[in-house]
Protein backbone atom coordinates (compact mmCIF):
# COMPACT_ATOMS: atom_id res chain seq x y z
CA UNK A 1 0.00 0.00 0.00
CA UNK A 2 3.00 2.35 0.38
CA UNK A 3 3.47 4.67 -2.57
CA UNK A 4 7.09 5.40 -1.76
CA UNK A 5 6.71 9.14 -1.30
CA UNK A 6 7.50 11.04 1.88
CA UNK A 7 5.63 14.15 2.98
CA UNK A 8 6.43 16.49 5.84
CA UNK A 9 3.37 18.04 7.45
CA UNK A 10 2.93 20.51 10.27
CA UNK A 11 1.28 23.69 11.47
CA UNK A 12 3.48 26.74 11.07
CA UNK A 13 4.25 29.59 13.44
CA UNK A 14 2.59 30.19 16.79
CA UNK A 15 -0.44 28.21 15.67
CA UNK A 16 -1.65 25.34 17.83
CA UNK A 17 -4.60 23.99 15.81
CA UNK A 18 -4.01 20.25 16.05
CA UNK A 19 -7.22 18.65 14.86
CA UNK A 20 -6.81 19.15 11.13
CA UNK A 21 -3.14 18.21 11.45
CA UNK A 22 -4.07 14.83 12.90
CA UNK A 23 -6.65 14.25 10.21
CA UNK A 24 -4.26 15.18 7.39
CA UNK A 25 -1.80 12.64 8.82
CA UNK A 26 -4.51 10.01 8.90
CA UNK A 27 -5.63 10.73 5.34
CA UNK A 28 -2.12 10.78 3.83
CA UNK A 29 -1.23 7.48 5.51
CA UNK A 30 -4.38 5.91 4.13
CA UNK A 31 -3.22 6.94 0.66
CA UNK A 32 0.13 5.23 1.14
CA UNK A 33 2.37 8.18 1.94
CA UNK A 34 5.18 8.06 4.45
CA UNK A 35 4.13 10.92 6.73
CA UNK A 36 6.51 12.93 8.88
CA UNK A 37 4.32 15.02 11.18
CA UNK A 38 6.22 17.73 13.03
CA UNK A 39 2.98 18.89 14.68
CA UNK A 40 1.83 22.33 15.67
CA UNK A 41 3.82 25.43 16.62
CA UNK A 42 6.52 24.62 14.10
CA UNK A 43 8.99 27.18 12.71
CA UNK A 44 10.12 27.04 9.05
CA UNK A 45 13.42 25.49 10.15
CA UNK A 46 11.67 22.46 11.64
CA UNK A 47 9.88 21.76 8.36
CA UNK A 48 13.11 22.10 6.40
CA UNK A 49 15.21 20.02 8.79
CA UNK A 50 12.60 17.26 8.77
CA UNK A 51 12.49 17.31 4.97
CA UNK A 52 16.28 17.04 4.71
CA UNK A 53 16.51 14.25 7.28
CA UNK A 54 13.80 12.17 5.63
CA UNK A 55 14.61 13.06 2.05
CA UNK A 56 11.04 14.22 1.64
CA UNK A 57 9.24 14.82 -1.66
CA UNK A 58 6.88 17.51 -0.44
CA UNK A 59 6.08 19.82 2.46
CA UNK A 60 2.48 20.56 3.39
CA UNK A 61 2.19 23.66 5.54
CA UNK A 62 -0.97 24.35 7.51
CA UNK A 63 -1.91 27.67 9.05
CA UNK A 64 -5.26 28.13 10.73
CA UNK A 65 -4.90 31.26 12.81
CA UNK A 66 -4.51 34.08 10.31
CA UNK A 67 -0.80 34.79 10.71
CA UNK A 68 0.14 32.61 7.73
CA UNK A 69 1.31 35.53 5.65
CA UNK A 70 3.97 36.58 8.16
CA UNK A 71 4.95 33.01 9.03
CA UNK A 72 5.42 31.80 5.45
CA UNK A 73 7.54 34.64 4.10
CA UNK A 74 10.91 33.49 2.75
CA UNK A 75 10.03 29.80 3.12
CA UNK A 76 10.94 28.98 -0.51
CA UNK A 77 14.21 30.91 -0.25
CA UNK A 78 15.14 29.02 2.92
CA UNK A 79 14.35 25.73 1.19
CA UNK A 80 16.59 26.69 -1.72
CA UNK A 81 19.42 27.69 0.59
CA UNK A 82 19.11 24.35 2.39
CA UNK A 83 19.39 22.49 -0.90
CA UNK A 84 15.72 21.54 -1.20
CA UNK A 85 15.72 23.00 -4.68
CA UNK A 86 12.56 21.68 -6.26
CA UNK A 87 10.68 20.39 -3.29
CA UNK A 88 6.92 20.70 -3.62
CA UNK A 89 5.45 23.26 -1.20
CA UNK A 90 1.75 23.42 -0.44
CA UNK A 91 0.03 25.72 2.01
CA UNK A 92 -3.55 25.75 3.19
CA UNK A 93 -5.98 26.82 5.91
CA UNK A 94 -7.22 30.17 7.18
CA UNK A 95 -4.17 31.92 5.80
CA UNK A 96 -5.02 35.56 6.49
CA UNK A 97 -6.88 37.62 9.07
CA UNK A 98 -10.47 38.22 8.00
CA UNK A 99 -12.57 37.40 4.98
CA UNK A 100 -10.48 38.41 1.97
CA UNK A 101 -10.83 37.68 -1.72
CA UNK A 102 -9.35 34.21 -2.19
CA UNK A 103 -7.86 34.93 -5.63
CA UNK A 104 -5.73 37.72 -4.14
CA UNK A 105 -4.70 35.64 -1.15
CA UNK A 106 -3.77 32.74 -3.41
CA UNK A 107 -1.69 35.01 -5.61
CA UNK A 108 0.27 36.30 -2.63
CA UNK A 109 1.21 32.76 -1.60
CA UNK A 110 2.01 31.58 -5.12
CA UNK A 111 4.22 34.65 -5.51
CA UNK A 112 6.00 33.54 -2.33
CA UNK A 113 6.95 30.34 -4.12
CA UNK A 114 4.31 27.87 -2.96
CA UNK A 115 3.25 25.44 -5.67
CA UNK A 116 -0.34 25.41 -4.50
CA UNK A 117 -2.44 27.22 -1.89
CA UNK A 118 -5.80 26.08 -0.56
CA UNK A 119 -8.65 28.14 0.87
CA UNK A 120 -10.41 27.40 4.18
CA UNK A 121 -12.56 24.31 4.19
CA UNK A 122 -10.79 22.46 1.36
CA UNK A 123 -11.28 18.71 1.57
CA UNK A 124 -7.88 17.14 2.22
CA UNK A 125 -8.72 14.52 -0.41
CA UNK A 126 -8.56 17.25 -3.06
CA UNK A 127 -5.08 18.31 -1.99
CA UNK A 128 -3.93 14.69 -1.95
CA UNK A 129 -5.20 14.27 -5.50
CA UNK A 130 -3.19 17.32 -6.57
CA UNK A 131 -0.16 16.01 -4.70
CA UNK A 132 -0.31 12.66 -6.47
CA UNK A 133 -0.51 14.45 -9.79
CA UNK A 134 2.39 16.73 -8.97
CA UNK A 135 4.46 13.76 -7.76
CA UNK A 136 3.56 11.66 -10.78
CA UNK A 137 1.74 8.95 -8.82
CA UNK A 138 -0.80 7.04 -10.86
CA UNK A 139 -4.31 6.91 -9.38
Amino acid at each position, binding site marked *: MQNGKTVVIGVIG*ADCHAVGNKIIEHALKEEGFNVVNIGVLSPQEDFINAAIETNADAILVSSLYGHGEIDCRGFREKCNEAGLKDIILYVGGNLVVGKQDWKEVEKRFLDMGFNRAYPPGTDIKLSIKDLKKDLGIEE
Partner: protein
Amino acid sequence: MELRNKKLTHDEFFKQREEVLRQWPTGAGVNLEEAAEYLKKVPEHKQFSKKLRYAKENGITLAQPRAGVALVEEHINLLRYLQNEGEADLLPSTIDSYTRQNRYNECEVGIEESKKAGRSMLNGFPAVNYGVEGCRRVYEAVDLPLQARHGTPDARLLSEIIHASGWTSNEGGGISYNIPYAKSVPVEKSIRDWQYCDRLVGIYQEMGIELNREPFGPLTGTLVPPSMSNAVAIIEGLLAAEQGVKNLTLGYGQCGNLIQDVAAIRALVEQAEEYFKMYGYDVYLTTVFHQWMGGFPHDESKAFGVISWGSATAALAGATKVIVKTPHEAVGIPTKEANAAGIKATKQTLNLLRGQRLPESKELKAEIELIKAETKCILDKVFELGNGDLAVGTVKAFEAGVLDIPFAPSKYNAGQIIPARDNNGAVRYLEFGNIPFTKEIKDYNRQLLEERAKYEGRPVSFQMAVDDIFAVGKGVLVGRPENMR
Protein backbone atom coordinates in the same frame (compact mmCIF):
# COMPACT_ATOMS: atom_id res chain seq x y z
CA MET B 1 10.41 24.35 45.01
CA GLU B 2 8.17 21.35 44.82
CA LEU B 3 4.83 21.61 43.00
CA ARG B 4 1.87 21.35 45.31
CA ASN B 5 -1.67 22.64 45.50
CA LYS B 6 -1.02 25.19 48.17
CA LYS B 7 -1.57 28.93 48.27
CA LEU B 8 1.65 30.72 47.29
CA THR B 9 3.18 32.51 50.23
CA HIS B 10 3.81 36.24 50.15
CA ASP B 11 7.51 35.62 49.58
CA GLU B 12 7.02 32.98 46.92
CA PHE B 13 4.73 35.25 44.97
CA PHE B 14 6.64 38.48 45.21
CA LYS B 15 10.00 36.92 44.54
CA GLN B 16 8.60 35.39 41.35
CA ARG B 17 6.91 38.68 40.56
CA GLU B 18 10.19 40.52 40.22
CA GLU B 19 11.22 38.18 37.41
CA VAL B 20 7.83 38.28 35.77
CA LEU B 21 7.76 42.06 35.53
CA ARG B 22 11.20 41.99 33.90
CA GLN B 23 10.08 39.70 31.07
CA TRP B 24 9.28 42.68 28.84
CA PRO B 25 9.84 46.40 29.35
CA THR B 26 6.15 47.14 29.89
CA GLY B 27 6.30 45.05 33.07
CA ALA B 28 7.92 48.03 34.77
CA GLY B 29 4.64 49.92 34.35
CA VAL B 30 2.75 47.65 36.76
CA ASN B 31 2.40 48.88 40.32
CA LEU B 32 0.22 46.71 42.54
CA GLU B 33 -0.92 49.43 44.94
CA GLU B 34 -1.63 51.92 42.18
CA ALA B 35 -3.43 49.18 40.25
CA ALA B 36 -5.59 48.36 43.28
CA GLU B 37 -6.59 52.01 43.56
CA TYR B 38 -7.43 52.02 39.87
CA LEU B 39 -9.47 48.82 40.14
CA LYS B 40 -11.39 50.13 43.13
CA LYS B 41 -12.69 52.92 40.90
CA VAL B 42 -14.10 50.53 38.28
CA PRO B 43 -17.85 51.26 38.27
CA GLU B 44 -20.24 48.38 38.97
CA HIS B 45 -21.47 48.08 35.38
CA LYS B 46 -17.88 47.46 34.23
CA GLN B 47 -17.13 44.78 36.84
CA PHE B 48 -17.23 41.26 35.47
CA SER B 49 -18.03 39.61 38.79
CA LYS B 50 -20.93 41.96 39.50
CA LYS B 51 -22.55 41.52 36.12
CA LEU B 52 -22.27 37.74 36.35
CA ARG B 53 -23.82 37.75 39.81
CA TYR B 54 -26.73 39.82 38.56
CA ALA B 55 -27.26 37.49 35.61
CA LYS B 56 -27.16 34.36 37.73
CA GLU B 57 -29.56 35.75 40.30
CA ASN B 58 -32.02 36.85 37.62
CA GLY B 59 -31.81 33.76 35.44
CA ILE B 60 -30.38 35.69 32.50
CA THR B 61 -27.83 34.35 30.02
CA LEU B 62 -25.31 37.00 28.90
CA ALA B 63 -23.69 37.14 25.45
CA GLN B 64 -19.96 37.72 24.94
CA PRO B 65 -18.12 37.80 21.59
CA ARG B 66 -14.48 37.10 20.82
CA ALA B 67 -12.56 39.99 19.27
CA GLY B 68 -9.10 41.43 19.01
CA VAL B 69 -6.92 43.26 16.48
CA ALA B 70 -3.36 44.51 16.42
CA LEU B 71 -3.71 48.27 16.89
CA VAL B 72 -5.15 50.06 19.93
CA GLU B 73 -7.42 52.47 18.07
CA GLU B 74 -8.76 49.75 15.77
CA HIS B 75 -9.26 47.48 18.76
CA ILE B 76 -11.23 50.18 20.56
CA ASN B 77 -13.34 50.79 17.46
CA LEU B 78 -14.04 47.09 17.22
CA LEU B 79 -15.06 46.74 20.86
CA ARG B 80 -17.22 49.85 20.78
CA TYR B 81 -18.94 48.54 17.66
CA LEU B 82 -19.69 45.22 19.34
CA GLN B 83 -20.95 47.09 22.38
CA ASN B 84 -23.11 49.64 20.57
CA GLU B 85 -24.19 47.87 17.38
CA GLY B 86 -23.74 44.26 18.45
CA GLU B 87 -25.49 44.72 21.79
CA ALA B 88 -22.87 42.59 23.57
CA ASP B 89 -23.32 42.16 27.33
CA LEU B 90 -19.65 41.51 28.09
CA LEU B 91 -16.54 42.42 26.11
CA PRO B 92 -13.41 40.40 25.38
CA SER B 93 -9.98 41.25 24.23
CA THR B 94 -8.74 38.26 22.34
CA ILE B 95 -4.94 38.16 22.60
CA ASP B 96 -2.83 37.35 19.53
CA SER B 97 -0.99 34.04 19.12
CA TYR B 98 2.54 35.45 19.43
CA THR B 99 1.73 36.90 22.85
CA ARG B 100 0.33 33.51 23.81
CA GLN B 101 3.78 32.05 23.15
CA ASN B 102 5.47 35.01 24.92
CA ARG B 103 7.08 36.01 21.61
CA TYR B 104 6.78 39.75 22.16
CA ASN B 105 9.42 40.60 19.56
CA GLU B 106 7.24 39.06 16.89
CA CYS B 107 4.31 41.07 18.23
CA GLU B 108 6.33 44.22 17.57
CA VAL B 109 6.80 43.10 13.97
CA GLY B 110 3.07 42.38 13.73
CA ILE B 111 2.19 45.81 15.10
CA GLU B 112 4.52 47.56 12.66
CA GLU B 113 3.30 45.49 9.70
CA SER B 114 -0.30 46.18 10.66
CA LYS B 115 0.39 49.92 10.63
CA LYS B 116 1.96 49.63 7.20
CA ALA B 117 -0.62 47.26 5.72
CA GLY B 118 -3.60 49.20 7.03
CA ARG B 119 -5.14 45.94 8.26
CA SER B 120 -4.48 43.75 11.25
CA MET B 121 -1.64 41.31 10.65
CA LEU B 122 -2.14 39.82 14.11
CA ASN B 123 -5.03 37.60 15.14
CA GLY B 124 -5.57 39.45 18.39
CA PHE B 125 -4.59 42.32 20.64
CA PRO B 126 -0.93 42.20 21.84
CA ALA B 127 -1.70 43.44 25.35
CA VAL B 128 1.79 42.91 26.82
CA ASN B 129 3.46 45.04 24.18
CA TYR B 130 1.03 47.88 24.83
CA GLY B 131 1.41 47.58 28.58
CA VAL B 132 -0.78 49.16 31.23
CA GLU B 133 -1.01 52.44 29.39
CA GLY B 134 -2.40 50.92 26.18
CA CYS B 135 -4.65 48.44 27.99
CA ARG B 136 -6.14 51.19 30.15
CA ARG B 137 -6.95 53.17 27.02
CA VAL B 138 -9.00 50.18 25.87
CA TYR B 139 -10.68 49.77 29.25
CA GLU B 140 -11.54 53.45 29.47
CA ALA B 141 -13.00 53.53 25.96
CA VAL B 142 -15.71 50.93 26.62
CA ASP B 143 -18.73 50.72 28.91
CA LEU B 144 -18.88 47.02 29.62
CA PRO B 145 -16.81 44.58 31.70
CA LEU B 146 -13.65 43.55 29.88
CA GLN B 147 -11.91 40.17 29.88
CA ALA B 148 -8.66 38.84 28.43
CA ARG B 149 -9.24 35.72 26.32
CA HIS B 150 -6.21 33.99 24.93
CA GLY B 151 -4.57 30.56 25.25
CA THR B 152 -1.32 31.40 27.01
CA PRO B 153 0.53 28.70 28.97
CA ASP B 154 2.58 31.34 30.82
CA ALA B 155 0.23 34.30 31.21
CA ARG B 156 1.84 35.80 34.31
CA LEU B 157 2.99 39.09 32.79
CA LEU B 158 -0.14 39.33 30.66
CA SER B 159 -2.32 38.84 33.77
CA GLU B 160 -0.38 41.47 35.72
CA ILE B 161 -0.87 43.99 32.93
CA ILE B 162 -4.52 43.37 32.14
CA HIS B 163 -5.74 43.35 35.73
CA ALA B 164 -3.77 46.51 36.49
CA SER B 165 -5.59 48.04 33.53
CA GLY B 166 -9.11 47.51 34.85
CA TRP B 167 -9.83 44.29 32.96
CA THR B 168 -11.85 42.46 35.58
CA SER B 169 -11.67 38.91 34.23
CA ASN B 170 -9.04 36.58 32.85
CA GLU B 171 -9.61 33.35 30.97
CA GLY B 172 -7.31 30.36 31.24
CA GLY B 173 -5.80 27.67 33.41
CA GLY B 174 -2.78 25.47 33.84
CA ILE B 175 -4.36 22.62 31.88
CA SER B 176 -6.82 24.34 29.57
CA TYR B 177 -4.31 26.94 28.32
CA ASN B 178 -1.53 24.42 27.92
CA ILE B 179 -2.65 21.06 26.54
CA PRO B 180 -4.82 22.48 23.71
CA TYR B 181 -2.49 25.43 23.00
CA ALA B 182 1.09 24.23 23.31
CA LYS B 183 3.31 21.46 22.03
CA SER B 184 6.05 21.17 24.63
CA VAL B 185 5.19 23.02 27.81
CA PRO B 186 5.32 20.65 30.82
CA VAL B 187 2.05 20.47 32.73
CA GLU B 188 3.95 21.17 35.92
CA LYS B 189 5.22 24.45 34.46
CA SER B 190 1.85 25.71 33.29
CA ILE B 191 0.15 24.76 36.56
CA ARG B 192 2.77 26.74 38.47
CA ASP B 193 2.39 29.71 36.15
CA TRP B 194 -1.39 29.69 36.51
CA GLN B 195 -1.08 29.36 40.27
CA TYR B 196 0.67 32.71 39.97
CA CYS B 197 -2.16 34.18 37.86
CA ASP B 198 -4.73 32.88 40.32
CA ARG B 199 -2.76 34.10 43.32
CA LEU B 200 -2.62 37.56 41.76
CA VAL B 201 -6.42 37.53 41.66
CA GLY B 202 -6.45 36.22 45.23
CA ILE B 203 -4.25 39.11 46.36
CA TYR B 204 -6.57 41.64 44.74
CA GLN B 205 -9.49 39.79 46.37
CA GLU B 206 -7.83 40.25 49.75
CA MET B 207 -7.61 43.95 48.99
CA GLY B 208 -11.39 43.97 48.47
CA ILE B 209 -11.35 43.74 44.66
CA GLU B 210 -13.36 40.83 43.29
CA LEU B 211 -11.96 39.79 39.91
CA ASN B 212 -13.44 36.95 37.88
CA ARG B 213 -11.47 33.93 36.67
CA GLU B 214 -12.61 31.56 33.95
CA PRO B 215 -10.87 28.28 33.12
CA PHE B 216 -11.24 27.50 29.41
CA GLY B 217 -13.92 24.82 29.22
CA PRO B 218 -13.97 23.51 25.65
CA LEU B 219 -10.26 22.46 25.55
CA THR B 220 -9.64 21.36 21.93
CA GLY B 221 -13.27 22.05 21.11
CA THR B 222 -13.38 18.81 19.19
CA LEU B 223 -15.54 15.94 20.42
CA VAL B 224 -14.34 16.32 24.00
CA PRO B 225 -16.57 14.06 26.11
CA PRO B 226 -18.28 16.17 28.82
CA SER B 227 -16.85 14.13 31.69
CA MET B 228 -13.30 14.89 30.52
CA SER B 229 -13.86 18.63 30.17
CA ASN B 230 -15.82 18.75 33.43
CA ALA B 231 -13.00 16.93 35.24
CA VAL B 232 -10.50 19.50 33.94
CA ALA B 233 -12.83 22.39 34.80
CA ILE B 234 -13.28 21.16 38.37
CA ILE B 235 -9.53 20.66 38.81
CA GLU B 236 -8.78 24.15 37.53
CA GLY B 237 -11.55 25.55 39.71
CA LEU B 238 -10.09 23.89 42.80
CA LEU B 239 -6.57 25.04 41.94
CA ALA B 240 -7.82 28.61 41.50
CA ALA B 241 -9.84 28.53 44.71
CA GLU B 242 -6.76 27.43 46.66
CA GLN B 243 -5.00 30.59 45.48
CA GLY B 244 -7.83 32.73 46.78
CA VAL B 245 -10.05 33.15 43.70
CA LYS B 246 -13.64 33.75 44.85
CA ASN B 247 -15.53 34.53 41.64
CA LEU B 248 -15.22 31.67 39.22
CA THR B 249 -16.83 30.81 35.90
CA LEU B 250 -16.55 27.20 34.77
CA GLY B 251 -17.06 26.43 31.10
CA TYR B 252 -18.26 23.83 28.67
CA GLY B 253 -18.23 23.66 24.88
CA GLN B 254 -21.40 22.63 23.06
CA CYS B 255 -21.37 19.05 21.81
CA GLY B 256 -24.70 19.34 19.97
CA ASN B 257 -27.05 16.88 21.65
CA LEU B 258 -29.45 18.95 23.74
CA ILE B 259 -29.86 16.52 26.61
CA GLN B 260 -26.12 15.87 26.90
CA ASP B 261 -25.31 19.58 26.71
CA VAL B 262 -27.83 20.56 29.37
CA ALA B 263 -26.75 17.60 31.50
CA ALA B 264 -23.10 18.63 31.19
CA ILE B 265 -23.76 22.14 32.51
CA ARG B 266 -25.97 20.86 35.35
CA ALA B 267 -23.49 18.12 36.26
CA LEU B 268 -20.65 20.65 36.20
CA VAL B 269 -22.38 23.01 38.62
CA GLU B 270 -23.59 20.29 40.99
CA GLN B 271 -20.28 18.44 41.10
CA ALA B 272 -18.07 21.54 41.29
CA GLU B 273 -20.15 22.84 44.20
CA GLU B 274 -19.76 19.46 45.92
CA TYR B 275 -15.97 19.56 45.55
CA PHE B 276 -15.72 23.20 46.67
CA LYS B 277 -17.71 22.32 49.74
CA MET B 278 -15.70 19.16 50.38
CA TYR B 279 -12.43 21.12 50.28
CA GLY B 280 -13.78 24.10 52.18
CA TYR B 281 -13.64 26.76 49.45
CA ASP B 282 -16.13 29.59 49.40
CA VAL B 283 -16.57 30.34 45.72
CA TYR B 284 -19.28 32.20 43.80
CA LEU B 285 -19.77 29.90 40.81
CA THR B 286 -21.18 30.83 37.41
CA THR B 287 -21.07 28.99 34.09
CA VAL B 288 -20.13 29.74 30.50
CA PHE B 289 -21.45 27.81 27.51
CA HIS B 290 -19.41 27.96 24.30
CA GLN B 291 -21.35 27.82 21.06
CA TRP B 292 -20.18 25.06 18.74
CA MET B 293 -16.35 25.19 18.61
CA GLY B 294 -15.83 22.77 15.70
CA GLY B 295 -16.00 23.23 11.96
CA PHE B 296 -18.70 25.61 10.71
CA PRO B 297 -20.68 25.66 7.47
CA HIS B 298 -19.38 28.22 4.95
CA ASP B 299 -22.88 29.40 4.12
CA GLU B 300 -23.70 32.31 6.43
CA SER B 301 -27.38 31.42 6.78
CA LYS B 302 -26.42 27.95 7.88
CA ALA B 303 -23.88 29.44 10.29
CA PHE B 304 -26.72 31.46 11.83
CA GLY B 305 -28.54 28.17 12.37
CA VAL B 306 -25.55 26.76 14.26
CA ILE B 307 -25.12 29.96 16.29
CA SER B 308 -28.79 30.16 17.23
CA TRP B 309 -29.00 26.52 18.24
CA GLY B 310 -26.01 27.02 20.52
CA SER B 311 -27.72 30.04 22.05
CA ALA B 312 -30.94 28.12 22.60
CA THR B 313 -29.05 25.29 24.29
CA ALA B 314 -27.22 27.76 26.54
CA ALA B 315 -30.53 29.29 27.59
CA LEU B 316 -32.23 25.94 28.17
CA ALA B 317 -29.21 24.84 30.21
CA GLY B 318 -29.36 28.01 32.27
CA ALA B 319 -25.74 29.00 31.60
CA THR B 320 -24.73 32.40 32.99
CA LYS B 321 -23.09 33.46 29.75
CA VAL B 322 -22.54 32.22 26.23
CA ILE B 323 -19.50 32.75 24.01
CA VAL B 324 -20.65 33.73 20.56
CA LYS B 325 -19.51 32.54 17.13
CA THR B 326 -20.00 34.51 13.93
CA PRO B 327 -21.36 33.79 10.44
CA HIS B 328 -17.75 34.11 9.15
CA GLU B 329 -16.51 31.32 11.41
CA ALA B 330 -15.68 28.94 8.54
CA VAL B 331 -13.43 31.44 6.77
CA GLY B 332 -11.45 32.93 9.62
CA ILE B 333 -11.47 36.05 11.71
CA PRO B 334 -14.76 37.91 11.18
CA THR B 335 -15.41 41.50 10.21
CA LYS B 336 -16.89 43.60 12.96
CA GLU B 337 -20.25 43.48 11.17
CA ALA B 338 -20.24 39.68 11.07
CA ASN B 339 -19.22 39.60 14.71
CA ALA B 340 -22.09 41.91 15.65
CA ALA B 341 -24.48 39.79 13.56
CA GLY B 342 -23.53 36.71 15.57
CA ILE B 343 -24.18 38.52 18.84
CA LYS B 344 -27.54 39.84 17.65
CA ALA B 345 -28.79 36.42 16.53
CA THR B 346 -27.60 35.07 19.87
CA LYS B 347 -29.24 37.77 21.95
CA GLN B 348 -32.53 37.44 20.09
CA THR B 349 -32.57 33.71 20.82
CA LEU B 350 -31.57 34.21 24.45
CA ASN B 351 -34.25 36.84 24.95
CA LEU B 352 -36.98 34.67 23.41
CA LEU B 353 -35.93 31.89 25.75
CA ARG B 354 -35.46 33.98 28.88
CA GLY B 355 -36.65 31.98 31.86
CA GLN B 356 -37.24 28.80 29.85
CA ARG B 357 -35.33 25.71 31.01
CA LEU B 358 -35.19 22.13 29.84
CA PRO B 359 -37.44 20.38 32.37
CA GLU B 360 -36.30 17.43 34.43
CA SER B 361 -36.83 14.09 32.72
CA LYS B 362 -35.68 10.51 33.00
CA GLU B 363 -33.26 11.00 30.10
CA LEU B 364 -31.77 14.21 31.49
CA LYS B 365 -31.37 12.71 34.94
CA ALA B 366 -29.65 9.62 33.54
CA GLU B 367 -27.24 11.73 31.48
CA ILE B 368 -26.36 13.92 34.48
CA GLU B 369 -25.71 10.79 36.56
CA LEU B 370 -23.52 9.29 33.83
CA ILE B 371 -21.42 12.44 33.42
CA LYS B 372 -20.97 12.78 37.17
CA ALA B 373 -20.04 9.11 37.56
CA GLU B 374 -17.49 9.31 34.74
CA THR B 375 -16.06 12.56 36.10
CA LYS B 376 -15.75 11.05 39.56
CA CYS B 377 -13.81 8.05 38.22
CA ILE B 378 -11.31 10.45 36.68
CA LEU B 379 -11.05 12.82 39.66
CA ASP B 380 -10.71 9.99 42.20
CA LYS B 381 -7.75 8.65 40.28
CA VAL B 382 -6.17 12.11 39.95
CA PHE B 383 -6.31 12.61 43.72
CA GLU B 384 -5.00 9.09 44.24
CA LEU B 385 -2.04 9.65 41.91
CA GLY B 386 -1.17 12.83 43.77
CA ASN B 387 -1.50 11.24 47.18
CA GLY B 388 -4.19 13.78 47.86
CA ASP B 389 -2.42 16.72 46.20
CA LEU B 390 -4.38 17.87 43.18
CA ALA B 391 -1.53 19.70 41.45
CA VAL B 392 0.79 16.73 41.67
CA GLY B 393 -2.03 14.37 40.77
CA THR B 394 -2.80 16.37 37.63
CA VAL B 395 0.78 16.15 36.38
CA LYS B 396 0.85 12.40 37.04
CA ALA B 397 -2.60 11.93 35.55
CA PHE B 398 -1.44 13.39 32.24
CA GLU B 399 1.64 11.17 32.34
CA ALA B 400 -0.57 8.15 32.99
CA GLY B 401 -3.21 9.09 30.42
CA VAL B 402 -5.82 9.35 33.16
CA LEU B 403 -6.42 12.90 31.97
CA ASP B 404 -6.35 12.77 28.17
CA ILE B 405 -7.73 15.43 25.83
CA PRO B 406 -8.73 14.27 22.34
CA PHE B 407 -6.89 15.91 19.41
CA ALA B 408 -4.64 18.00 21.65
CA PRO B 409 -1.21 19.15 20.31
CA SER B 410 0.73 18.76 23.56
CA LYS B 411 3.33 16.04 23.78
CA TYR B 412 2.45 15.77 27.48
CA ASN B 413 -0.99 14.54 26.51
CA ALA B 414 -1.31 10.80 25.96
CA GLY B 415 -3.65 11.12 22.99
CA GLN B 416 -4.95 7.62 23.53
CA ILE B 417 -8.64 8.23 23.87
CA ILE B 418 -10.86 8.50 20.80
CA PRO B 419 -14.33 10.01 21.01
CA ALA B 420 -17.26 9.54 18.64
CA ARG B 421 -20.93 10.38 18.57
CA ASP B 422 -23.64 7.90 19.41
CA ASN B 423 -26.73 7.55 17.27
CA ASN B 424 -28.36 10.56 18.96
CA GLY B 425 -25.31 12.75 18.48
CA ALA B 426 -24.08 12.62 22.07
CA VAL B 427 -20.27 12.36 22.38
CA ARG B 428 -19.07 9.04 23.83
CA TYR B 429 -15.73 7.31 24.41
CA LEU B 430 -14.73 5.00 21.55
CA GLU B 431 -11.22 4.23 22.83
CA PHE B 432 -10.73 4.64 26.58
CA GLY B 433 -6.95 4.80 26.66
CA ASN B 434 -6.12 4.80 30.34
CA ILE B 435 -9.24 6.53 31.57
CA PRO B 436 -10.13 4.66 34.77
CA PHE B 437 -13.81 3.97 34.15
CA THR B 438 -15.74 1.13 35.71
CA LYS B 439 -16.63 -1.80 33.48
CA GLU B 440 -20.27 -0.72 33.61
CA ILE B 441 -19.45 2.74 32.23
CA LYS B 442 -17.19 1.34 29.54
CA ASP B 443 -19.80 -1.19 28.48
CA TYR B 444 -22.45 1.50 28.31
CA ASN B 445 -20.31 3.79 26.13
CA ARG B 446 -19.46 0.88 23.87
CA GLN B 447 -23.07 -0.24 23.62
CA LEU B 448 -24.19 3.22 22.48
CA LEU B 449 -21.54 3.29 19.77
CA GLU B 450 -22.40 -0.23 18.66
CA GLU B 451 -25.99 0.94 18.19
CA ARG B 452 -24.76 3.62 15.83
CA ALA B 453 -22.46 1.20 14.05
CA LYS B 454 -25.35 -1.17 13.51
CA TYR B 455 -27.58 1.62 12.21
CA GLU B 456 -24.84 2.73 9.82
CA GLY B 457 -23.85 -0.76 8.78
CA ARG B 458 -20.15 -0.31 9.54
CA PRO B 459 -17.83 -1.18 12.41
CA VAL B 460 -17.09 1.17 15.31
CA SER B 461 -13.84 2.88 14.17
CA PHE B 462 -11.67 6.00 14.07
CA GLN B 463 -13.38 6.89 10.78
CA MET B 464 -16.53 7.69 12.79
CA ALA B 465 -14.60 10.34 14.72
CA VAL B 466 -13.18 11.77 11.47
CA ASP B 467 -16.65 11.88 9.91
CA ASP B 468 -18.05 13.51 13.05
CA ILE B 469 -15.39 16.23 12.99
CA PHE B 470 -16.49 17.39 9.53
CA ALA B 471 -20.22 16.76 10.01
CA VAL B 472 -21.39 20.15 11.31
CA GLY B 473 -19.46 21.95 8.58
CA LYS B 474 -21.45 19.83 6.15
CA GLY B 475 -24.72 20.62 7.85
CA VAL B 476 -25.37 17.63 10.10
CA LEU B 477 -24.41 16.60 13.61
CA VAL B 478 -23.55 12.93 13.18
CA GLY B 479 -21.05 12.01 10.43
CA ARG B 480 -22.88 9.20 8.66
CA PRO B 481 -21.26 7.18 5.85
CA GLU B 482 -21.68 8.68 2.40
CA ASN B 483 -24.43 6.32 1.29
CA MET B 484 -26.62 7.48 4.21
CA ARG B 485 -26.46 11.22 3.61
